[in-house]
């Protein structure tokens, strides 16, 4: 074991790593830890040519600076990305300096029955599939590792933001897959890793076509063509959007959106290429049922999540249903139709406002999306909601006397908070919110048999039904048909209360 000192080729910074002769070995790089374990030195196995060096240099200089200097830089660099920070050379190989992964991205327990993967990275694959959640599976993950359904929405939000930011900078990931994303369901975190492969369109070409399960249909369908053929499709921003949609679908529903029962060719390789490429078809296509999963051909460990009749994608709520339709029906073979990362972010955020806690303490998912019915029940365990359920619809002022619906609904549950982004349409709920904007303005609670809202900080709130002010530190009862103006400021919203499950 020896400590090796290396020098940056861009600055005069010095780095060190411990060489124990057995580095962590990835596809393209050997990874060594620094003595203080604050960063890793990842050294390429192959010699990198001029273009590669140029591309890596831009990643660790220009693009890193862009993220650092813009809003929410800390959020992106500490939470969402493990962004390479410098380039080094040792002998004739080059390497990158990457900050170490946060400890939450390593299994604290792993399998419930053994320590085999304890301390290993939480590769996204563990949480995308269904088997590892099945308690009867011999190698199921411990319950403490799995998180709740709501956490997978947070993971999707973080991932969408990561992709959104790259696309805003003109970059595309080109190999987005569960291998390149670490996730921690218990905290709802996601972290994109292996970012040294980023593609700058028109400047640096994609080196890889992606990872099976996430390669866009047009890329697979033109894989046989030469790279110089103008019809050949290589990874780009739009193929990232296919991969992102697949990831979100898999994290929420633990099955693949395109892997159904339809057979296109008797040869396995050809069949796979067609069913993920040229002939790809959404397993839940509403009109074409031919690719529905065949339940008798599903691994017995996967059957719960594989059953699209029992757990249809519509349980993810109206906003996400619309985006899944765009991604896997309209946009599957028409890349321009695919939802952008920001659309996913917004839809996921809005959906979390529709979520309810399941009253069954044994329910594995704990949360579900309100299904817009008058008698809501949990789609996972079938438990009906007990008691009344206030539904708040948000309206914005279109003209002085005309209020229009926002297509944004907020479901109330006991001890739920209300935030600035509900009150005022000029406050956008995203990673750029200030600390002050993240402080709740009030909360909902079920108090002495009534649903009430307790106003903590809203200074110009008015009960329009009763036509009286709701001062700070007072409460107002939520009754069917009640209209509440949350703020008189520009952008202030009105909420309309509906009591469901009466």
């Amino acid at each position, binding site marked *: 074991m020896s400590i090796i000192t290396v020098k940056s080729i861009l600055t005069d910074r010095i780095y060190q790593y411990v060489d124990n002769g057995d580095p962590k070995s990835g596809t393209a790089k050997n990874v060594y830890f620094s003595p203080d374990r604050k960063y890793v030195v990842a050294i390429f196995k192959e010699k990198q040519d001029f273009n590669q060096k140029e591309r890596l240099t831009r990643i660790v200089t220009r693009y890193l600076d862009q993220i650092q200097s813009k809003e929410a830089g800390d959020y992106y660099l500490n939470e969402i990305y493990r962004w390479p920070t410098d380039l080094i050379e040792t002998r004739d190989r080059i390497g990158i300096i990457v900050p170490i992964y946060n400890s939450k991205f390593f299994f604290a327990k792993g399998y419930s029955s053994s320590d085999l993967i304890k301390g290993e990275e939480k590769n996204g694959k*563990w949480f995308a*599939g269904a088997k590892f959640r099945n308690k009867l599976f*011999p*190698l199921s993950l411990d319950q403490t590792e799995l998180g709740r359904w709501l956490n997978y929405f947070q993971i999707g939000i973080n991932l969408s933001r990561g992709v959104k930011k790259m696309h805003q900078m003109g970059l595309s990931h080109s190999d987005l897959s569960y291998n390149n994303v670490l996730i921690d369901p218990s905290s709802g975190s996601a972290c994109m890793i292996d970012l040294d492969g980023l593609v700058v369109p028109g400047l640096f070409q*994609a*080196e*890889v076509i992606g990872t*099976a399960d996430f390669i866009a249909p047009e890329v697979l369908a033109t894989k046989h063509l030469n*790279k110089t053929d103008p019809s050949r499709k290589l990874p780009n921003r739009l193929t990232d959007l296919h991969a992102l949609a697949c990831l979100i679908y898999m994290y929420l529903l633990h099955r693949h959106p395109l892997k159904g029962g339809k057979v296109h060719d008797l040869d*396995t390789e050809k069949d796979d290429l067609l069913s993920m490429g040229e002939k790809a078809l959404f397993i839940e296509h509403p009109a074409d049922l031919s690719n529905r999963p065949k339940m008798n051909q599903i691994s017995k460990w996967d059957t719960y999540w594989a059953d699209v009749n029992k757990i249809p994608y519509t349980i993810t709520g109206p906003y996400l249903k619309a985006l899944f339709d765009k991604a896997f029906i309209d946009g599957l073979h028409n890349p321009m139709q695919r939802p952008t990362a920001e659309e996913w972010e917004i839809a996921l955020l809005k959906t979390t406002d529709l979520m309810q806690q399941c009253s069954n303490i044994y329910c594995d998912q704990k949360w579900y999306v309100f299904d817009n019915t008058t008698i809501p029940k949990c789609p996972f365990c079938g438990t009906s909601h007990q008691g009344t359920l206030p539904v708040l619809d948000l309206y914005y002022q279109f003209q002085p006397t005309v209020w229009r619906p926002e297509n944004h609904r907020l479901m109330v549950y006991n001890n739920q908070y209300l935030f600035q982004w509900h009150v005022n349409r000029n406050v956008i709920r995203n990673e750029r919110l200030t600390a002050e904007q993240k402080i709740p303005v009030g909360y909902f609670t079920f108090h002495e048999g009534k649903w009430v809202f307790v106003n903590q900080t809203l200074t110009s709130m008015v009960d329009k039904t009763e036509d009286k002010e709701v001062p700070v530190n007072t409460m107002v009862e939520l009754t069917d048909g009640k209209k509440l103006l949350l703020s008189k400021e520009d952008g202030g919203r009105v909420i309309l209360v509906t009591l469901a499950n009466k």
Partner: protein
Amino acid sequence: MRRLPVYFLIDTSGSMYGEPIQALNNALSGMVNTLRADAQALDSLWISMITFDREVKEIVPLTELPSFQLPEITCPQSGPTHTGHALEMLYEKVKLDIIRGSSTQKGDWKPLMFLFTDGKPSDLQLYREMLPKIKSLNFGAIVCCAAGHLANDSLLKELTPDVVHLDTADSATLKQFFKWVSETIEQGNKSQGTGESVTLPPPPSEITLII
């Protein structure tokens, strides 16, 4: 849904007796543990093991990895190496085990086969008769591992161009080899290049790959 069947053919002839068989058991259990810590492998991998000496035994029929229990492999103190006979059993098993694609059923991935031997086939005639039959099964990859100076590389090369020669069958070398085997099995899960076919990953530098 699709399974990736992997067959291991393991030489348990007399020459393996003693340290080599211990080292092999150790390396196999390391490999199984590596695979059992791989989410992708746990999703699709099915494993079968056949041992051959004078007798040929299917010691584990094709079993999904999560339920796979590795038995202790033992060998007699002396006896011939019936490689041909082992291929014959493999041929019958593969024909029965593999789910072929049909209009209503997705087929398995092409099976992989790893043959480990430290000698040369004693039943050479049967071995040669089996070669075309094995090739007709259309394996995704056939890799032979020849360990020690008695192993005959040229005969194995009649079966597959991918022959790895290990100079010794000691624990460290075998471990390296089976680490490479698991990497080969896990290959489909990695990022795919913009080039065409998927090839075997480069073998570890300590061993010789004859191609």
